[in-house]
């Protein structure tokens, strides 16, 4: 019988995943204005891809994480890299071009807000489950 306990596990996995998402956003924003000598070296925005924990094999025995979520992989944003002509830049190639990162600051801010809201949702779930559990414990005092 699965009970309220598993709510904590599930919400915990979600908190973890949203935190990873927040971290990637922070990393993307931090690297937004980096430049590189070649297109391959240019920084590409990272995006975590979530996956539902639907099978028992994904979960540790004793921890009710079934039904939670995990970060399956972190993929690069496919947006093309822009290059600008900046011969004075020490990172410029022979032709005087530097390659910018493909981070879109607006998009990252939106991503950050979405991650933060999702995190708050799951904190609220934990809080509610905790309150209900405490009330259930008090049933003997009625």
């Amino acid at each position: 019988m699965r009970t309220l306990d598993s709510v904590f596990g599930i919400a915990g996995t979600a908190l973890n995943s949203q935190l990873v998402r927040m971290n990637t956003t922070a990393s993307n924003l931090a690297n937004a204005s980096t430049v590189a000598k070649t297109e391959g070296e240019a920084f590409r925005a990272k995006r975590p891809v979530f996956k539902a924990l639907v099978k028992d094999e994904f979960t540790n025995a004793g921890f009710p994480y079934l039904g939670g979520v995990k970060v399956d992989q972190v993929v690069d944003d496919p947006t093309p890299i822009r290059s600008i002509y900046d011969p004075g830049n020490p990172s410029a190639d022979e032709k005087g071009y530097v390659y910018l990162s493909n981070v879109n600051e607006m998009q990252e801010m939106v991503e950050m807000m979405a991650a933060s809201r999702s995190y708050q949702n799951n904190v609220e779930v934990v809080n509610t489950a905790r309150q209900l559990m405490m009330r259930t414990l008090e049933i003997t005092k009625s």
Partner: protein
Amino acid sequence: MDLFSGALGIHERALGVRSQRLEVLSRNIANADTPNYKAEELDFKAMLKETSREYISATHAKHYAALEEQPDDGKRFRVPFNSTFDGNTVEISVEQAQFGQAAADYQTTLNFLENRISGIRKALKGE
């Protein structure tokens, strides 16, 4: 002696179903950003019906084996109001509202249980 077996009535079982519903909803909220995740919901009526349902079973060697009947676990997929590009059917505001309701439902069942227990206590004290 079977003095208290039925004392808590349906609420004992209902509390289990309520907590299960909370779990399903928390799963939906946790997977709000998971691509291709399909939101689930519990059919309370079906689950309650399941408790009083009797299954055909072979009790004698000469009986024909009965058809395998799968118990209805009450799980249903949500039908979303809007579709999304990534195939996720969780609508977070719906889930939030449902979660609030589920929490209130749980507390209601708890209240019923508390009443029952205090009733039993009164009866035992004989005041």
